[in-house]
């Protein structure tokens, strides 16, 4: 489904020259195209953050948007994350649809008070009178050899906060569709972009993708909907964001050993699609949850609990987790010890009380 990560060169050009038809598309370019298409479709969509203007963002996700839509609609702010988030609240209150970029996961923490105290609560405090249709984009998680404070998996902080919708795409196709959905969503969305997937490629028909995103019947359909990324019968691997390709690779390796693993791509951490996940686990009777974040008190822990509560009678083995260790994100030369690997997933699958073991 996805090619190996290849860093794209200068061929990726500005969003000012939108492409059409069947073509190889990177995850990053899919996001860039989604932003451009959303801005084209709705003049109230406005983008700001650090270095998102002429530079196009440190990952080039906003490449070409200032040139195409003007500096009033895509602009740089002073270096202040609470300021970015707080201003987005006010702009959303006053008729705009802000899509802000928090350059790196761990740099979003200064904005945390705004996110928790206002972004998540404002519609509730005002009994729904004030809606906050805004998107907080966070390039997140590790696997890119980044130095400290550039690789945190911060999803549990957001998922634990009622009022926030938390999305994490894992494929190029979802990168486009889910960002379009997030921008049209009536409530605030935390949109987690796995950095290590930015350079993965899929060949997609952009016209078809746009049609799907614009179709009223499918608009919003990625929010709260998990998908079966690979069908299988023996056990279910439940993953999201950066862990999905790892889970798929593990399923591929298991197949060669004669074990059929189903892979669920959760996509939407909040709301969580209990239905798709439990249907799969009831079918296979075994489950492993895979996530990069430290496992203690995490989204992975929550998924394990939910599956256990709902599928207990179908389970042949305890639901297990393969997560990052409960340590601060390690230095680049050590991160491969930390990240859930294919081997660690397969070892865990082997421990699921198989009759032939």
């Amino acid at each position, binding site marked *: 489904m996805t090619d190996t990560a290849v860093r794209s060169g200068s061929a990726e050009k500005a969003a000012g020259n939108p492409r059409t038809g069947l073509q190889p598309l990177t995850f990053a370019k899919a996001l860039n195209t989604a932003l451009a298409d959303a801005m084209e479709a709705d003049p109230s969509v406005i983008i700001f953050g650090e270095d998102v203007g002429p530079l196009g963002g440190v990952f080039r996700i906003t490449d070409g948007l200032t040139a195409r839509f003007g500096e009033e609609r895509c602009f740089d702010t002073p270096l202040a994350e609470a300021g970015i988030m707080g201003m987005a609240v006010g702009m959303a209150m006053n*008729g705009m649809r*802000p899509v802000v970029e928090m350059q790196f996961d761990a740099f979003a923490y200064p904005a945390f008070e*705004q996110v928790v105290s206002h972004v998540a609560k404002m519609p509730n405090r005002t*009994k729904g009178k004030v809606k906050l249709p805004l998107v907080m984009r966070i390039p997140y998680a590790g696997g890119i050899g980044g130095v400290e404070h550039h690789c945190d998996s911060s999803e549990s902080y957001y998922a634990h906060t009622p009022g926030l919708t938390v999305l994490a795409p894992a494929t190029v196709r979802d990168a486009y569709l889910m960002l379009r959905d997030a921008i049209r969503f009536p*409530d605030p969305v935390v949109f987690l972009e796995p950095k290590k997937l930015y350079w993965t490629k899929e060949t997609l028909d952009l016209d078809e993708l746009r049609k799907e995103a614009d179709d009223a019947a499918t608009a919003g359909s990625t929010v709260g909907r998990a998908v079966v990324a690979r069908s299988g019968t023996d056990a279910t691997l439940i993953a999201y964001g950066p862990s999905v390709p790892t889970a798929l690779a593990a399923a591929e390796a298991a197949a060669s050993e004669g074990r059929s693993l189903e892979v669920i791509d959760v996509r939407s951490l909040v709301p969580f699609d209990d239905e798709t996940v439990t249907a799969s686990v009831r079918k296979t009777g075994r489950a492993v949850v895979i996530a990069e974040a430290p496992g203690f008190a995490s989204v992975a822990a929550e998924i394990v609990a939910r599956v256990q509560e709902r599928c207990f009678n179908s389970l042949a083995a305890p639901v297990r987790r393969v997560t990052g260790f409960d340590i601060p994100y390690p230095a680049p030369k050590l991160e491969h010890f930390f990240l859930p690997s294919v081997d660690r997933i397969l070892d865990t699958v082997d421990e699921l009380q198989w009759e032939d073991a």
Partner: protein
Amino acid sequence: MTISTGNSANNQYGESMKPTGRSSDQGPTAEEYMLPSAQPVQLVDPSGEHIHNDRYPLPDGEALLSAYEKLVVGRRINDQANALVRQGRMAVYPSSHGQEACQVAAAVVLEKDDWLFPTYRDTVAVITRGVDPLGVLTLLRGDWHSGYDPYEYKTATQATPLATQLLHAVGVAHAAKLRGENTVVLALCGDGATSEGDFHEALNFAAVFHVPVVFLVQNNEYAISVPLKHQTVAPSLAHKAIGYGMPGERVDGNDLAAMLSVLGKAVDRARDGGGPALVEAHTYRMQAHTNADDPSRYRPQSDVDEWVPKDPITRMRTYLGNLNLLTAEEEQRIAGAAEETASTLRDGLNSEPEINPADLFEYVYTEKTSQLREQAALLADELSREGA
């Protein structure tokens, strides 16, 4: 540089504010304009005498009389709300007794379509803005976090975290500017809030994006128990404006006339495209932070007593009385209006609020998640079994 730069409304960043390369023959320099006055601006002193000020004209008698009425009503609201807390009708009330001139002026200087961003202590400002008093006190009674529609009166919900709402004010102003609307936003905070990071970020963003926001700091000397000298060693809070590239001004916060004139000028300037400004109102919190507070632990009564003669109501009453604008008959009518507001508050708060447990799940997301639907059903089931 000129004070009003009407043509700067389209500038994304605040280029027109940059003093670099300007010479004095183009008007006052940025430094001259931005520096707050040496003493807080005062137009009517505590004895009720007018003090002339070249830059700030005295509002006319009619405007002062109208605002004076709101001052008296505001005092009555504070007293009534305190009484209702003692009677157990409200969870808490942070009184603005003594600060009513700041509150009234903040509401009065705005047009209908302007926005007000109040804090938890700004109940009187919100009521003066026209919001139903019972809706305002919903927060403090404890039946919901906010009891009014912010869009109906262009008045944000009262903020409890300090300084966070100042950034929302900048966002509302920025959106208004991008859409070419002639809206000014007035954002309130206290002296303690000026120590918060969001205060810094809000002023910086407002200046960089050159948006029409007036920041009003009500310096009432204490952040709960911590005196101003432990918040800052700056010459004044208004001086902080210089560092962001916007004008700052100090005003006697117990002088209704000065508050109206200084705030009015800052609002006019913002509306004309002049950008943001910071106004520091010097006032005093005559009562406790809230009913949970014991001010005798951190300030002597003699300090409080020193502020009694500076009261905003008595000085304006003397001034208007001296001009024969405030007759005994008029004073009686105003007292009646204040009593009517107090009566509305009592009636509203003495009746039990309607509580609907299903509301718990209604306003978290536009559409309830399956998880919330399950939890709502659980609670409904529990309640039906209790009823049975």
